[in-house]
């Protein structure tokens, strides 16, 4: 892989991150925000893999495995919170819980 293709891949990874960030900011349904968070986390994953492949280093893939664990934990907690929120208060909108205080 040349430097140029690595730069292309890194730009693609940044675009994925930006698209995910756009989704998190623009959506208000909690479920759709979680889907956008998955897209957001896919960007760094692509960056790690591309950099690891460029340098022939296993650390890129190892970091991807760690990132996978983060994403799994985030999805588990996020979806549990979403279901709990819907069962307790019947809202699926993150704006309607912005007044939460302890």
């Amino acid at each position, binding site marked *: 892989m040349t430097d140029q293709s690595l730069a292309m891949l*890194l730009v693609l990874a940044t675009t994925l991150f930006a698209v995910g960030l*756009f989704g998190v900011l623009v959506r208000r349904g909690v479920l759709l925000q979680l*889907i956008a968070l998955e897209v957001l986390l896919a960007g760094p994953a692509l960056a790690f893999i591309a950099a690891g492949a460029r340098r022939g280093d296993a650390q890129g893939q190892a970091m*991807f495995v760690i990132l996978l*664990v983060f994403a799994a934990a985030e999805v588990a907690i996020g979806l549990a*919170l979403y*279901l709990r929120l819907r069962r307790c208060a019947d809202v699926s909108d993150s704006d309607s819980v912005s007044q939460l205080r302890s």
Partner: protein
Amino acid sequence: MSAMVAIVAGGLAVVAALLAVTSSDAVRSLFALLAALLTLAAAFFALGADFAGALQILIYAGAVAAVFVFVVMTITNSDALRAAEHSRLRRVWPVPAAVAILIVLMVLPALRGAKSSAAVGAAIPVRAVGALLFGPWAVVVELASFLLLAAMLGARHLGRRAPSPPPNEPLQGRDGPS
């Protein structure tokens, strides 16, 4: 050549991600997310990261997406809700879009700075990844397992059903004559 395949697959992933983020239907959004994850797996395979590609398909597109499907099954999908989501999307998109475009513009100079050098890098065997994860990175793996345990307990705690309240005759009985 394989880098070219990876770039094309990454571009397809970006398109699918855009669809996932902008569609107002949860099911459609989920399918677009699945497409993005699978095309990313193709990019990983093309980059020589076989293990990462397999994990991407098995865990991301398999397990995580299945969990999303279970949750999507519980929501009611009415036309009114979809229309509300659509109108809200049309109202608020400019500022987040500006933020996203700004982020992409910040890294675009990297394209110009890259010198086209000789191709380097090779496919990384799974053995090397395992040796790294369970050798020098053992503490990281332990921390990740703590995180997974905490997430599992947290999800279990948040997802439990509250005990149903007893029927309300004790409240009336306690009132007494007044």
